[in-house]
């Protein structure tokens, strides 16, 4: 029998943490800092809105773009929060999570052989998404010294004549890095000079703890060349609802919409009703969760530093990215031994790219008691390495 697997699927790099999953399954009493999602329940009024939409029989497809009311609310919300203006009728598509938004954004603009610049370390899906679209991922190394930002120098060095798209994600998974207005301004001219398109994944925008999130499209000259992606997963604790959105100038939105229409038809209907409720009446619950993440960040990062894992204070998202270099172990050895010996799960930084080496990603969207127990266990582990 021939090998039916496509070359593309066959060649996709496997997940960097496969062996972790296998190991995890054999263990109990594990405290996991290895997740990338809120530990809160979706606020009940939001869940209730979806339930009642089902009770009313609203269980059909919506329009391909998504419910008009949801797009209108989102458009107003983006304008108010980030000063980006998108027309709900022509410049927005409701997607099945940011995950789908990423896929259709990349496929809408990348031709085979086009180079897509991705920050390193970055969210694991990016390189694979680019490969699936036939593009070539090119990494943009970021470092702790720069706060894991994209600096003009690094950007200049990474651009080649084939570069077409710059994929940004701030606040960043896995580093918690943030780009402020000045930081974005500093790279805007380069983006424009080299005629790049930016795909800006802002799913963690609202989880910005110091100062306000700056949306890439809000920078002068960048709106025209930016696809903004965002969603409900993180800020509203709605990972399982699969609800996101894509915003871009009309031509690009239309291209993405075509793909969306063929692969997805429309985002889940009940989830869209939940999204409407989230935007109308979810602000307080959201702010409470964000305040709690901030508190956990402060406690957790101090805890990591106290037990001997140097860690920058991440300014956004809910990840801390401490260095484990001082332990003498590689990030993979560190993660594996920490799991075996102390039953704490963290993700090796190299799963997110070469520049993630020597770090581990830890998610502090975990309840405080567990978080402090995790710090205690990490402390015991680090201590054991010295003796």
């Amino acid at each position, binding site marked *: 029998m021939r090998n039916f697997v496509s070359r593309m699927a066959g060649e996709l790099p496997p997940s960097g943490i496969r062996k972790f999953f296998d190991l995890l399954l054999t263990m109990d009493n594990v405290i996991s800092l290895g997740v990338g999602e809120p530990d809160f329940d979706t606020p009940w009024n939001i869940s209730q809105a979806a339930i009642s939409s089902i009770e009313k029989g609203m269980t059909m497809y919506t329009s391909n773009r998504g419910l008009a009311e949801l797009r209108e609310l989102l458009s107003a919300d983006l304008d108010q929060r980030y000063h980006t203006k998108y027309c709900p009728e022509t410049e927005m598509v409701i997607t099945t999570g940011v995950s789908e938004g990423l896929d259709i954004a990349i496929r809408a603009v990348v031709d085979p052989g086009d180079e897509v610049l991705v920050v390193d370390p970055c969210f694991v899906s990016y390189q694979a998404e680019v490969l699936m679209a036939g593009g070539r991922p090119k990494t943009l190394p970021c470092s702790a010294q720069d706060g894991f930002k994209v600096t003009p120098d690094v950007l200049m060095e990474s651009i080649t004549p084939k570069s077409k798209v710059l994929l940004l994600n701030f606040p960043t998974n896995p580093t918690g890095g943030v780009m402020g207005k000045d930081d974005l301004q500093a790279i805007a001219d380069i983006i424009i000079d080299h005629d790049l398109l930016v795909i800006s994944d802002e799913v963690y925008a609202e989880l910005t703890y110091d100062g306000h999130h700056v949306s890439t499209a809000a920078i002068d000259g960048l709106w025209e060349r930016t696809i903004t992606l965002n969603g409900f997963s993180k800020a509203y604790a709605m990972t399982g609802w699969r609800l996101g959105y894509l915003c871009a100038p009309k031509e690009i939105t239309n291209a993405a919409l075509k793909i969306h229409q063929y692969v997805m038809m429309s985002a889940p209907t009940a989830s869209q009703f939940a999204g409407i409720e989230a935007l109308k009446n979810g602000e307080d619950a959201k702010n409470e969760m964000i305040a709690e993440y901030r508190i956990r960040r402060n406690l957790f990062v101090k805890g990591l530093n106290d037990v001997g894992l140097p860690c920058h204070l991440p300014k956004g998202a809910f990840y801390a990215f401490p260095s484990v270099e001082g332990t003498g172990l590689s990030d993979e050895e560190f993660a594996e031994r920490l799991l075996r010996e102390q039953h704490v799960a963290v993700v090796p930084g190299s*799963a997110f790219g070469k520049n993630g080496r020597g770090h581990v990603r830890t998610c502090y969207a975990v309840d405080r008691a567990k978080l402090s127990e995790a710090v205690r266990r990490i402390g015991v582990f680090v201590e054991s390495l010295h003796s």
Partner: protein
Amino acid sequence: MDEKDTVILRELQKNGRIAAGDIAVMLEVDENEVENRIAALQAGGILRRCTAVIDYGAAGVDEVAVILSLKITPERGLGYDGIAAQIARFPQVESILLLTGTYDLQVIIRGQSMAEVSRFVAEQIASIEGVRETMTQIVMRTYKEQGVEMLRPGSRDRQLITF
């Protein structure tokens, strides 16, 4: 009272045993400031007590609670306050609320047995001058108390690793 005090109160309400040092890290201030603020909140009568929410059922301890609704004839010059203060002195009384509607006061009473609580209501409360009518309801189960949902397990299963 400012924003920091509000956070301190909220944290203490969630967990009366939280360390001042932890609150200091959360607020990004030093520990002394937190201690001073807590002392000031106590001195000002704002922070009355840090207490615990206990699920006695889970501990296998039998305990009864009743909600007692009272109609009161208000006293001249004192309104409801005099009678409420009289009732408040009994240690069996957990809370007293003044309400609009059919009944004036709602009193929550806890005791070891139904017999004990009944006796207490009949002998100590019903007999107070100015109490015109009582209605006693037995609490069958507590689902949520002081913001804590009693039936829900502490945490749900989720994946141990995701990206």
